[in-house]
């Protein structure tokens, strides 16, 4: 079960790094943090799950979307 979720995270991260549109990669990145929060919950680490969900999905997505709004959205 954990292996499937880890595979999902690796795929999400590769898409986040190599996609043309930065907004898609931000969404892919926040998806990976939600999945990693799920992994933490399954591995009996509730504290880290709440933190990863609040920070990874919540805060870093807000910051990345702010930077995209104020700079360019497409990569090259």
């Amino acid at each position, binding site marked *: 079960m954990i292996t499937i979720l880890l595979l999902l995270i690796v795929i999400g991260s590769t898409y986040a790094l190599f996609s043309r549109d930065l907004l898609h990669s931000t969404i892919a990145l926040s998806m990976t943090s939600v999945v990693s929060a799920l992994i933490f919950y399954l591995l009996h680490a509730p*504290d880290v799950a709440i*933190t990863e969900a609040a920070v990874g999905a919540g*805060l870093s997505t807000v910051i990345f979307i702010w930077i995209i709004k104020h700079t360019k959205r497409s990569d090259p």
Partner: protein
Amino acid sequence: MTKLMGIVSLLLLSAVLGPIIITEHPWSQNARDFLLHNGYRDTGASNLVSAIYLGYRAYDTIGETIVLLAAVTGAVFLIKGFGSSHQAPVPSYKRGAIRTNIISMTTGKLAPVVMLFGWYVMFFGHQSPGGGFQGGVVLASGMLFIALGREHHKRDSQLTKKRLHRIEVLSLWLILLLVCIPLTLGAAILENPLTKIGDSIPRVIYIIGFNMAIGLKVGSGLSILGLLMMDMQHDD
């Protein structure tokens, strides 16, 4: 050219990090067994992670709060810039006109629920999962919900940044106070002072105090950053 460098460095790194990460080693259990027996007795917190995070290794948590403080101060100073942020040409459509009723309605209604959850996570950090930092982040997102929820122009009346700055400085001083209180009772710095008073007062109060101070600090710091990022058009 850089792709070639990238591949070579990947090979080097996997040669070094591979044996550390991939080889099978039995995980040492003496730390867990020790905590199982006298984690509750020493710190009074039944959530062992909070016991470590705010009891045994509170010095790391102080360092971590200072990392957050330095990062928020640096980021706010850089984003506000030297008054140059206003020269950035802000096209008209960005002036918040796109905030439809749906956003105002939902975030307005959701804000109290999120804030309540934030306070709960902060206060019950020692028993249920959660604690100072997680509560602070949820509180900060609650503040952003409130800011989103109000109509564009009325937003600045209550949530002036001055009040948030005051909360942040107050909670920083509260943390410093909590660090130094044990000195007055003859205990070492960051030692649980209630162990000196005897068993009348439960020891967990010291951890709850830390949870509150750190939660306020993180919540106000990140709200300042979030509010600054949200309404880039006009600062206070």
